[in-house]
């Protein structure tokens, strides 16, 4: 049952650039969880003033809704929902 459910749950790839701040990752993950998505894969790189985070997400709600909620965060500079193939390579 669980594998069927997993197969039927849409998955998305999302890249997010955030300003460096305390709890940046927690803030991002909290919004993802509470808005109904599960992180199945995650990678992060940091520059001097920002973080680049790549997420593979699963969830049945519209991804645009999550994108809008993430873009609202004060320290989020950019959110891009990528096609599965392009993010597969970004996640390695």
């Amino acid at each position: 049952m669980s594998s069927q459910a997993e197969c039927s749950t849409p998955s998305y790839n999302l890249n997010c650039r955030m300003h460096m701040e305390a709890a940046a990752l927690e803030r991002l993950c909290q919004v993802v969880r509470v808005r109904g998505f599960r992180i199945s894969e995650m990678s992060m790189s940091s520059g001097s003033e920002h973080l680049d985070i790549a997420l593979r997400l699963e969830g049945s709600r519209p991804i645009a809704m999550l994108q809008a909620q993430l873009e609202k965060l004060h320290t989020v500079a950019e959110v891009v929902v990528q096609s599965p193939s392009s993010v597969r390579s970004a996640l390695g």
Partner: protein
Amino acid sequence: MNGAQHILDAFHRHNINTVFGYPGGCIMPLYDALVDDVGVEHVLCRHEQACALAADGFARASGEIGVCIATSGPGATNLITGVANAYMDSIPMLVISGQVPSPLIGTDAFQETDILGMTLGIVKHSYLVDDAEALPAIMEEAITLAQSGRPGPVWIDIPKNILLADVATPVATKTNAPKSHCPDVAEALAMLRSAKRPLLYSGGGVSLAQAEDSFRQFAQASGMPSVVTLKGIGNPGKGNPHNLGMLGMHGSRAANKAVDECDLLFVIGARLDDRATGKLDGFAPNARMIHIDADAAEINKLRPADLALRGDLNQILEACTKELNSEPLSISDWQKQCKTWHTTGGFQAADNEESLAPISGPAFVRQLSKIAPDNAVIACDVGQHQMWVAQHYEFDHPRHHLTSGGLGTMGFGLPAAIGAQFADRNSTVINVTGDGSFMMNAQELATIRRYNLPLKLIIMDNQCLGMVRQQQELFYNNRESHINLDDNPDFVAMARAFDIPALHIERTDQIRRGIEAILAYDGPMLLHVAISREENVWPMVKPGGSNKEMIDETRRTSASTKEQVA
């Protein structure tokens, strides 16, 4: 200047002259700075939750930012409910908490909690200050952020050593929120003109945007029948002939009927909350929707909009009004239809004329509405009395109605009323509460006494948690569970113990004299109103049900035996 003094400096720069707080270990440097600062009035509440809720009430009543302060650990955790309340209702608030000194963070030090982590989901933004030199800029950014766009609470957690540190950074210059643009309204107007049955649906976003005047001009120019959410009550004003009142779970039949029948829903500053829409599948089934909001994340969140306009509500409404003034809508048949529905399906309460009859909640509220001054601020708590106020009190302005809409926080009313009274010392502020809610922040009677606030407190006492009892009666086969409060204290004696005079009434013929007595008294006064335990809020939509399926007293028996909560 140390960190604490920089905080006060920011208050001065932004004309913040009233703050609500409670001192303690790690916030003591700020309290030490307050000793020398005569430009900021610090209001000592008796519980940190009340500090946050009072700051919330101050902001709602004044339209300015509310500020609350607490120490680390329990002081900060006690703020949480009040901050969540502000977050859910988009109230501009600055929260300042002390934190253990930076080197002790993460060591389970005395009164250490990870308040930043705990509160991520209930703030617009938050900071843990790790560099004293950054504090002036953080203060500046936080105050601006809390009030810009869609407002909300911003929390700054400040370690004690940062408050004490000398800060060399020059005082930050005041920044202004970026100006928003006005989207093109031509398509919205075209949709409006092609609609036969357009309906105006407004919420709390109107007053948050300080767009009350623009809204009324637009409502008048369009002539659209109008419904409001709980937080939108007062938007149309008393004089709007097309106002059908509140929609939703305890909305009027007329409002819900109009939503069901309309062919265009013109939504302004509302987020289509489930208490307003009921089951979404059945909500406004025949309507296209124009959604106007300051927050892009609200667009298409719950129901796709046929047209979305994001931006400053004032600019959008003014642009629409200008066009409508030159070419009004032709919707007279629809206006007449809605007026008929309002006549037969508006909020009605039979005012019992029998002098010895027990007091009915709706009848009491209707009397209060008639007797209280037009500009009185009513701060409600949560429960049946809250809905009776929403249904039966006629508000002329949304800032006169303080209610915990999103979070539904019992205990909100009394501290919110305190905040509202500090926002305007000369206004009439009335806390209408229930016996359950009152006991959740009853310690604030001491705050009222300390500052001699002329607040009026009205406890509608049915000796139970009435709204829970109502739902247990209707949807849980009348199986009452832990709602009984018949061992309440003597509220009159309790008020007097705080040196606040109080009256008790229980009969219909005592209503007017009771209300007039507390309003005439020069100082704080409490009116204890005994009401029936069995009285329900009607009409009602079953939780999770469609707004089309309202139940009322005539279906009370069948509902209680057959219906279960979905």
